[in-house]
């Protein structure tokens, strides 16, 4: 017996050794994928000798944690536009962190009086990260590729509008000529999808390779992408501050940090663990359940910004009982946003009363105040308005009935894609019960939600909409060119939206935005609820100087330094 026990122990030992060996074999090939630690310790201007930092020289690299795995890094083709490409592609003009449009690769621009032609004057001596010179011909090439149907760009129709032609006047002057003026043209010209890259580089590597390792004019360029794992960037040595003269930035030249890595981690627990261990230095999206934990960590700095996404209750305005404006207005007064924000989204939101969010370009404080004053939280007044519309509690069961005795019982749809929707919906359910409306909550699968809604099968629903520009109203509410959601169609609204969509001058455009907003507030096809506060978090013991631009909802790495 004793002997047998000894042997089994020896056996286990041998096996353990075998496992370690197996592990080595299993991972052996992988070590080679790690790029050799290049010397980054020396000064930024000259290459230091490779021998000085041979041993365990830990590479100085900023690691950003991100939950999304990009489908392509070709901005013109991507379905999702974010920091993974905004640090690569520099646009002709920029959206500064104070909400104004400032120069970029173009030192100036003019809009023709009819709004159909925008002329950009390029800076001289622009080079992409590999040193290829950039001239008006490159701009023409980029825009023409973006608008070409063969590119199958998902974002081009939205961002380019009715762009007809790109004309080169000389090496440094280029014109965008529109079939009809496009209201948000300048806002959208600041997007990285309009970022400029070298025709020569694109043609030399081809489309597929360009989508994997884009090199362009932004502060960084992509050196390596292991799909599903990480994207590595190196700084663009030719980058200059004047390519984005946002006043919050101070660094005159290329970014201080030489290497950046985006790590793709989908599981929040894993992400937070890596962040707390210091392996990930910046978090771009923080799961709400970890908000408090991070907030109490002294090594973590959290920078809030307001998402340009409006969460709202939408009504089907062509269907009983919401085809009566008074009913929709009454519900606007029956909803109290305070508990919704406090309990529904853990207080991490700001109440919104009008159709736009402050971080959307074209937002009007005047109309927000108008909406707030028109529909104060007042359940008694809501009940009066409902009574006026014929809804009274005739049998004393607490639920309103109309003159034919039909009960006010409606279905509210929520999407599986909105994690907080269930909690919010229950609060709304309770608040509407107070005024005699019975709401039944129905959960609808995310991917079929908008299809079902656009068929008009719903009564009311909970969802969100968002875009960086007031142009969102056009897409949400135009009777023929918009999506089908609330079926609130009026000719004066269409007219205001069309004018908004074709007016480039910001002050004149504001007039039409306000006009559209007023019709939407008075007609009440929805109850705007809130916009969420999002956070970017970084390890203040590892990195400093990270800045957030609330209008682009993105961060600047230009001034960042590793400690």
């Amino acid at each position: 017996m004793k002997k047998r026990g000894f042997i089994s122990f020896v056996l286990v030992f041998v096996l353990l050794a075998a496992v370690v060996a197996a592990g080595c074999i299993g991972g052996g090939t992988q070590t080679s994928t790690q790029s050799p630690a290049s010397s980054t310790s020396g000064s930024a201007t000259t290459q230091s000798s490779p021998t000085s930092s041979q041993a365990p020289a830990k590479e100085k690299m900023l690691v950003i944690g991100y939950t999304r795995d990009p489908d392509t890094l070709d901005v013109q083709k991507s379905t999702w536009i974010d920091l993974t490409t905004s640090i690569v592609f520099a646009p002709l003009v920029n959206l500064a962190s104070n909400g104004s449009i400032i120069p970029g690769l173009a030192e100036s621009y003019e809009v023709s009086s009819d709004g159909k032609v925008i002329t950009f004057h390029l800076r001289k001596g622009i080079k992409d990260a590999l040193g290829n010179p950039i001239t008006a011909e490159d701009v023409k090439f980029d825009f023409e590729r973006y608008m070409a149907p063969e590119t199958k760009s998902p974002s081009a129709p939205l961002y380019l509008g009715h762009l007809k032609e790109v004309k080169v006047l000389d090496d440094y002057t280029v014109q965008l000529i529109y079939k009809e003026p496009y209201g948000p043209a300048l806002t959208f010209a600041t997007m990285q999808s309009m970022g400029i890259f070298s025709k020569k580089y694109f043609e030399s590597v081809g489309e597929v390779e360009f989508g994997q390792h884009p090199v362009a004019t932004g502060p960084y360029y992509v050196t390596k992408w292991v799909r599903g794992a990480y994207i590595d960037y190196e700084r663009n040595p030719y980058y200059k501050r004047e390519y984005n003269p946002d006043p919050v930035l101070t660094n005159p030249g290329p970014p201080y940090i030489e290497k950046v890595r985006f790590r793709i981690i989908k599981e929040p627990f894993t992400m937070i663990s890596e962040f707390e261990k210091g392996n990930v230095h910046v978090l771009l999206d923080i799961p709400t359940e970890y908000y408090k934990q991070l907030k109490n960590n002294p090594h973590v700095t959290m920078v809030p910004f307001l998402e340009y996404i409006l969460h709202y209750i939408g009504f089907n305005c062509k269907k009983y009982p919401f085809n009566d404006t008074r009913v929709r207005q009454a519900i606007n007064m029956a909803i109290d946003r305070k508990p919704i924000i406090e309990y529904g989204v853990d207080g991490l939101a700001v109440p919104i009363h009008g159709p736009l969010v402050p971080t959307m370009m074209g937002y009007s404080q005047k109309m927000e105040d108008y909406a707030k004053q028109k529909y104060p939280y007042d359940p008694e007044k809501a009940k009066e308005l409902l009574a006026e519309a014929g809804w009274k509690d005739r049998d004393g069961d607490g639920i309103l009935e109309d003159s034919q005795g039909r009960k006010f019982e409606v279905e509210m749809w929520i999407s599986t894609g909105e994690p907080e929707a269930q909690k919010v919906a229950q609060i709304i359910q309770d608040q509407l019960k107070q005024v005699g409306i019975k709401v039944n909550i129905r959960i609808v699968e995310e991917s079929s939600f908008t299809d079902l809604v656009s068929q008009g099968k719903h009564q009311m629903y909970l969802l969100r909409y968002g875009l960086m520009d007031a142009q969102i109203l056009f897409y949400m509410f135009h009777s023929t060119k918009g999506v089908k959601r609330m079926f609130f169609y009026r000719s004066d609204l269409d007219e205001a939206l069309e004018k908004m969509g074709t007016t480039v001058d910001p002050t004149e455009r504001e007039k039409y935005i306000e006009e559209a907003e007023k019709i939407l507030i008075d007609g009440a096809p929805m109850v705007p609820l809130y916009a969420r506060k999002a956070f970017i978090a970084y390890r203040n013991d590892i990195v400093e100087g990270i800045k957030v631009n609330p209008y682009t909802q993105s961060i600047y790495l230009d001034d960042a330094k590793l400690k």
Partner: protein
Amino acid sequence: MKKGFIIRKFLSLLIPIFIVSIFSFSLLHLIPGDPARYILGDFATPQQLAQLRHQLGLDKPLYVQYIDWMVKLIHGDLGTSLVANVPVSELIKGRLSFTLKLTGTAWILAWIFGVSFGIISATKKHSVVDYGITTLAVFFMSMPYFWLGLMLMLIFGVKLGILPISGPGGWKNLILPAFTLGLPQIAVIARLTRANMLDVLEKDYITTAKAKGLPDTLVIYKHALRNAMIPLVTYMFLQIPWLFGGAVVTETVFAWPGMGSLLITAIFQRDYPVVQAIVLIIGTLTVIANFLADITYTIIDPRIRAMG
């Protein structure tokens, strides 16, 4: 071994693969959701959606789409991702090796540890060690990969800090995900080994061997283990589908860039060609695993050969 047997077996493989391909194709197309909607976003008009569907060939009848896909497949073309606009083979290329590395290591771990714990347990029947191993086995068998992965990460990555938390890298990065995937299999194999060993140890030829005066070690490892392993060999291959299934969750937890995490993303995006390709690859590997199980079984046990 007869040549005909292997050829017949091999041909019979194609049928399940074919069925798998039809299933994966139709299931995905029948659930609601639309890649065109995903690509164009919420503001797309019905006309734009219709146009993109036409461009992508999604407006053709399902059977035509299936035949198109099959024809391409036979020519070695897995198609192009609808969302990423990149050949599917390009997307999968890097991912497959990560998944094989993970499942392969888990598989090796499962056998080395599973068999050794099984032997210990069997030879020390009803001892504390035996009960300990059996209890732990039940525990690990019933743990979901997700929870197991997070716990291992919490203990060895976060608290002790001796192993990397997540992501690809050197062999150290492989340890936690491989054990997460391997532990439930270790448990299963340990229990199977124990049961089979106990069975064999009671056989007459073991008693004879012992009576001959052979040392215990020789009896256990030469006579008993070899015979006890026969039923286990099938499981060696049959467990492979389980490993692939578990890899989907494990890869997500450990940010391991294998096919599983790609599969999940692709399903949400309704990226049909990517999902179909992955399901087909996993299906084919499963079928091949079953085939190998059959073959090895006949090699080890001549009685089956005679009947087969």
